[in-house]
């Protein structure tokens, strides 16, 4: 699934993995957090080989916000967040005041404290996602992995989640590594992007370098327009209908009809 990948994520970096479906984004994320083992190669965390850590040690360093949320039994929000303390507690140990305080802070930071008494089933998609982020930061990790945290959220909630992550990164000095389908959100928040396709690295670097029209068209196999977002100054990517493809514009001497940009 994954081939020839070599990368280093910097401390406190906001690192976002993008790419078309089946590019291996989630597989890479799972390999990085060791929920799936890689067949060859090596991963190290904070200078130490990943497989030298126990599961519990790993969970104290890195937390995961998985894609989708499984709610089989009605746990309360507060108790769900408190589960983030597990890697810090022995099997039979009981949570202490300190643990409750940490969970409370995690809920305050994610604006979920007013939901504390509800069960997960009673929440909206955006609220659930914030609760799971609260559980993750309750682990007090130095690294936060997220698998498409904004998928299936409306625009306001997408931005809210991304702003929340940016705040957490700055206030808690957390390194963030996430998979995203939304290139425009990624462009606005990421320090660096990793563009993947078919399990390989297409490009890695700052958004201005990775979000290059021809490269993206090759990766996503669809016509695209890349311009500048006038509000943020970051790159903006818009997919175009097939009739705007380069092949079509070669036949049509006028080029891409409505775009005031020069295409050879």
């Amino acid at each position, binding site marked *: 699934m994954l081939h020839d990948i070599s990368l280093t994520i910097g401390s406190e970096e906001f690192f976002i993995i993008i790419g078309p479906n089946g590019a291996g984004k989630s597989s890479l994320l799972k390999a990085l957090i060791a929920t799936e083992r890689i067949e060859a190669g090596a991963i190290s965390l904070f200078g130490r080989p990943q497989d030298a850590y126990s599961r519990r040690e790993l969970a104290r360093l890195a937390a995961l916000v998985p894609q989708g949320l499984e709610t089989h039994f009605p746990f309360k929000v507060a108790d769900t967040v408190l589960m983030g303390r*597990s890697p810090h507690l022995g*099997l039979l140990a009981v949570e202490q005041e300190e643990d409750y305080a940490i969970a409370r802070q995690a809920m305050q930071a994610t604006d979920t404290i007013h939901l504390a008494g509800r069960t997960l089933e009673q929440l909206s998609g955006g609220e659930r996602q914030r609760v799971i982020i609260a559980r993750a930061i309750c682990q007090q990790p130095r690294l936060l992995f997220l698998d498409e945290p904004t998928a299936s959220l409306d625009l306001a909630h997408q931005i809210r989640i991304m702003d929340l992550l940016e705040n957490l990164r700055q206030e808690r000095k957390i390194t963030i590594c996430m998979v995203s389908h939304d290139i425009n959100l990624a462009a606005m928040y990421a320090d660096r992007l990793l563009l993947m396709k078919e399990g390989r690295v297409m490009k890695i670097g700052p958004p201005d370098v990775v979000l290059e029209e021809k490269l993206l068209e090759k990766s996503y196999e669809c016509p695209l327009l890349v311009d500048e977002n006038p509000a943020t100054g970051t790159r903006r990517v818009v997919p175009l209908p097939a009739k705007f493809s380069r092949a079509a514009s070669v036949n049509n001497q006028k080029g891409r009809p409505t775009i005031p940009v020069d295409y050879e």
Partner: protein
Amino acid sequence: MTDLLFTRITGRLLLICLLLGLLLAAALLLAAAIGSSNKSPLAIIDFVRALSEPGSTEHTIIWKIRLPRVLLAAMVGATLSLGGLVFQVLLRNPLAEPYILGVSGGAAVGAIAGMLIGIPFFPGVTASAFAGSMATLGIVMLLASGARAGGKDSLLLAGVMMNAFAGALIMFFISMSDSNRLHHILFWLMGDLAMADAARLPLFGLILPCYLIIFILARPMNLLLAGRDAAASLGVNVRQISLTLLITATFMVSLVVCLSGLVGFVGLVIPHILRLTIGPDHRLLVPASLLGGATYLVFCDLLARTLSTGGELPVGIITAMIGAPLFIFLLWRVRQ
């Protein structure tokens, strides 16, 4: 600072154990006092009198017959209830239960095969029962994991089919056996606590460590419900913990099947009621399921001994008459 946001575990654990412990003690006392010879609740008075008169017939009946039976009922109920709880976590399905999954049926096939071959009860028959239940569970999980969509239903369907197959095998074995064993095996199959004898109670020395293992793993059980990846990222060694829980639960259930035959639905009824009343935290649910399951089966056995005027009913009939309608209700509600 008191913090009402979170479920405080220690206080609640003590309270729940105290309440359910008292309930169990009362059930044990009542069940030991009441028998086919004395069905009125006033039997308690005779019971106390009999206990103070060593050598009387009542005294012998209580110590040699009723007490071992009542204790067996308690242990069987506790084990099946806890077994149900564990399977519900492992399969992330509140309808999972040793009997419904075919685990009990598989153990019964193994046990009957062992009995017919004529190997000694321990370790022979118990080992073959364990092998039978592990094999059944393996097949059920394999069948259910193959079907991606509608995973919950396919699991139940696989269990029902394995149960039917186990039933057919059992009938085949019975038809091959000679008739004086027949009545005994049939009665045992329906779930029978009458063959309790003090000599078999030490087998529970093997079951008590299972309770302990599962109690120690109560916190990881909570985390497993969040999903495999989430549990792993929260520090749970998912493979190792799941396998430990699976083998422990299957082992204790197959031992219980050897002792009492097929008693169904205890592992469905008790964890369900407890989850509704005390919440989904397994650090509370594990001890509560033990005490609640024990109380429930002691009570069901009391009904089985006293309801019918012409002899006694197998306790499995009572538990199925209570459990099966509840199962159907739950299935209906899941689909809503």
